[in-house]
C-alpha cells in the first residue's frame, strides 16, 4: 500500500510536466526504470507487454498508433480519416514561442498534423469509428483540429450507423487557440447528441492517463460506457490548481481511476491487456450480436472468418449464423 502513494506522486509529477526522475535514465537504450516499482525493465519486455510493467502492472504511456492497432481485429486494415487537417493560428498567439512555431515543432516530432488520430476500424467484427489522442502533440490538447476530427468521427458514426470509440489522453483545451478551443467542447458534444439520438449507436469512452480539463468536461465523460485504465489521472481541474485554491494537500489517490470508480463516475477499470476483449464483449452485447467470448484469440478468428458485421441491430440478424 505504501507503494501506492509514491506511485501516485510520480504520476502527478509527470502530469505537471516535470521530468520523471528515473525513467529511462540508467541505460537509455535497453532499460526503463518503472516509476511505480522502481525496478529496471527491459524496453523490449515493456513493448511486448503493451507498455505495462511486467513486474507491477504499471501502465506506461502507449502511442496512439499502437493503441489503435491493439484494439482493432488483427489482419484488418483501418481507414484513416482527416490526417491532412492542420491547425490555424487564429489568435496570432505568442507566449515564449509563437503558436505557429509550436505547431511546426509538434508536427516534426510526431509526424502528425495535430493531437488526434481518427480511423474506421473493425473491432470484434464490427466496423467502428475510432479515435485516439496523441499525447506527444502538445499534451494531447484539444484545439479546433482535434474538435473537428472528433465531431466528424461522431458524424460519420451517425451516418453509417456505427459505434464510436474515443481513447482520451489530454490535458484539456489548447490555450493557444483561446475561446475557440473552449467551443470545441460544445461542437463535439452536439455531434455526440446526434449520434445517440438519431443513430442510436453506442459510444465507448476510454480514459487513459491523463484525461482532464475540457476533454474530461465534454465527450470523455459522456460515454454510454466509460472505461478507464488503472491509475489514470482523471478530473476537471488539475491537482495543482485545486491545491492552490483550497490551500491544502490532496488526499492520497485523489482523481485516480480508482477514485472515480469509487465515486460512481466511471463504469469500470480495465487493465490494458483486457481492454480489447472487454470492448468486443460489451459492444456485441449492446448490439445484440452473438457472443464471441472466451479470449481475444478466439474473437479474432471468428471475426476474420465471418467478415464484417454491420453494427445496425436490424440488419445484423441477417449476417449472423
Amino acid at each position, binding site marked *: 500500500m505504501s507503494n501506492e502513494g509514491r506511485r501516485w506522486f510520480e504520476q502527478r509529477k509527470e502530469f505537471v510536466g516535470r521530468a520523471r526522475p528515473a525513467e529511462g535514465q540508467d541505460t537509455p537504450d535497453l532499460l526503463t526504470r518503472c516509476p511505480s516499482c522502481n525496478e529496471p525493465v527491459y524496453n523490449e519486455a515493456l513493448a511486448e507487454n503493451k507498455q505495462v510493467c511486467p513486474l507491477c502492472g504499471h501502465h506506461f504511456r502507449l502511442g496512439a498508433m499502437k493503441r489503435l492497432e491493439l484494439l482493432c481485429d488483427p489482419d484488418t486494415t483501418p481507414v484513416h480519416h482527416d490526417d491532412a487537417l492542420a491547425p*490555424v493560428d487564429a489568435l496570432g498567439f505568442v507566449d*515564449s514561442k509563437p503558436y505557429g512555431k509550436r505547431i511546426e515543432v509538434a508536427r516534426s516530432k510526431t509526424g502528425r498534423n495535430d493531437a488526434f488520430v481518427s480511423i474506421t476500424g473493425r473491432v470484434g467484427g464490427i466496423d467502428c469509428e475510432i479515435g485516439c489522442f496523441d499525447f506527444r502533440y502538445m499534451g494531447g490538447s484539444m484545439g479546433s483540429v482535434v474538435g473537428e476530427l472528433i465531431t466528424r468521427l461522431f458524424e460519420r458514426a451517425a451516418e453509417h450507423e456505427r459505434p464510436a470509440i474515443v481513447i482520451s489522453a489530454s490535458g484539456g483545451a489548447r490555450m493557444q487557440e483561446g475561446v*475557440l*478551443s473552449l467551443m470545441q467542447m*460544445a461542437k463535439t*458534444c452536439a455531434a455526440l447528441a446526434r449520434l445517440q439520438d438519431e443513430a442510436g449507436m453506442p459510444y465507448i469512452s476510454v480514459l487513459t492517463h491523463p484525461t482532464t480539463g475540457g476533454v474530461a468536461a465534454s465527450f470523455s465523460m459522456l460515454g454510454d460506457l466509460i472505461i478507464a485504465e488503472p491509475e489514470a489521472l482523471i478530473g476537471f481541474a488539475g491537482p495543482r490548481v*485545486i491545491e492552490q*485554491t483550497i490551500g491544502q494537500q*490532496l488526499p492520497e489517490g485523489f482523481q485516480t481511476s480508482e477514485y472515480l470508480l469509487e465515486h460512481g463516475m466511471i463504469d469500470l477499470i480495465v487493465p490494458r491487456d483486457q481492454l480489447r476483449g472487454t470492448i468486443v464483449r460489451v459492444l456485441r452485447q449492446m448490439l445484440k450480436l452473438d457472443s464471441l467470448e472466451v479470449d481475444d484469440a478466439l474473437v479474432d478468428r471468428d471475426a476474420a472468418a465471418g467478415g464484417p458485421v454491420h453494427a445496425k441491430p436490424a440488419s445484423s440478424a441477417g449476417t449472423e449464423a
Partner: protein
Amino acid sequence: MDVVLDFERPIVELQKRIDQLRELQDSNGVDLSASISELEHQAVKLQARIFAQLSPWQRTLIARHPGRPFTMDYVNALFTEWNELHGDRAGHDDQAIITGMARFRTIGDDPCDGMPVVIIGHQKGRNTRENIKRNFGMARPDGYRKALRLMKLADRFDMPILTFIDTPGAYPGIDAEERGQAEAIARNIIEMARLNVPVVAVVSGEGGSGGALAIGVANRVLMLENSVYSVISPEGCAAILWRDRAEGPRAAEALKITGPDCLELGVVDEVVSEPWGGAHRHRKATIEAVGQAVRKHFSDLLGLTRQELRTTRYDRFRAMGPVVERPLA
C-alpha cells in the same frame, strides 16, 4: 465600499472635485457653474479617452468589478413574477447559480411582453459575506445539475431559456471533483444541444471556461462590451505559459477574450455596448441595453420550430474553429 480601478482613478478624482464645488456652491450660494461645467467637460473628455482604448486586461478588471450588474439585478429590473426555484433533487442547492421562472415586463408593443421564461445565472456577491455564500460565483456540480433540471423543465413546458454567465470558472475543489464536476459540465453541454426551446445566453461578466459554457450552449450568445469569455483565466494561462501569474495582462491580450474579440472570432453574436465609465458605474443603463438586446434575439427565435432551434444551434457551434488542409509529406 466603492472599488476604484487604477485606470479610473483620474476620472473618479475629477468627479470628486466636481462634487466638492457643487457642495460649496450650494452651501455658500456662490455661482461656480462656469468652473463646474468646465470640469464636467474635462471629465467627459477624460472618460472618453480612457474608455475608448481599454486594454484587454483593463476590461478583465471591469468584468470582475463588484459593482457590475449581477444576475439578480437583471432579474429584478427586467422581469416580473419572479420565483427562484431551488435544488438539484440530489441533495444540494448550490448558491453560486440561481435558477427560476419569471415573465418579461410589459413595455408595450414588444413580442416578449409578458412572456414566461426560465432564467439561469451565476450569482456573485458584492461583499465578503455574500461571496462566501455564493462561492464567488464558482459553481459545484450541484449548481450545474440544478441548472440542467430547470432547462429540462423549460423544454417540457416550451419555455424559452435565458442564461447569465458570470463566473471565474467551475469550482476547483475536492468536493466538486468528488461529485463529478467534469461530468456535470459535460452533461449540461450535451443536453443544451438537445433543447427544443429558444436559448439566449448573456456573458455579463466573467465567462470562465467550462464553468461558463455549461450554461452557454445557446442559439444566441451576447456579450457585454467589457465582459470576457475565455478558455482559462489570464492569470492561470500566465502561470502555465509564462510561469508567472503576474503576467496576466499579457495573457489577457494574447487570449483574445474581450467582447469585440469574441465577436470577431464568431463566438458571440452581438456585443452590447456599455456606457463610457463601464457597467459598474452605469448599472441601470447597462441593464436596459441588455434587456433590449435579449428581447430582440428572442423575437428572432420565436418563429422557429423545435427542430429548427436544434439545427440552428448545432450549426452555430459546428462552424467554430478554423482548420486548414495540409497534407503530410
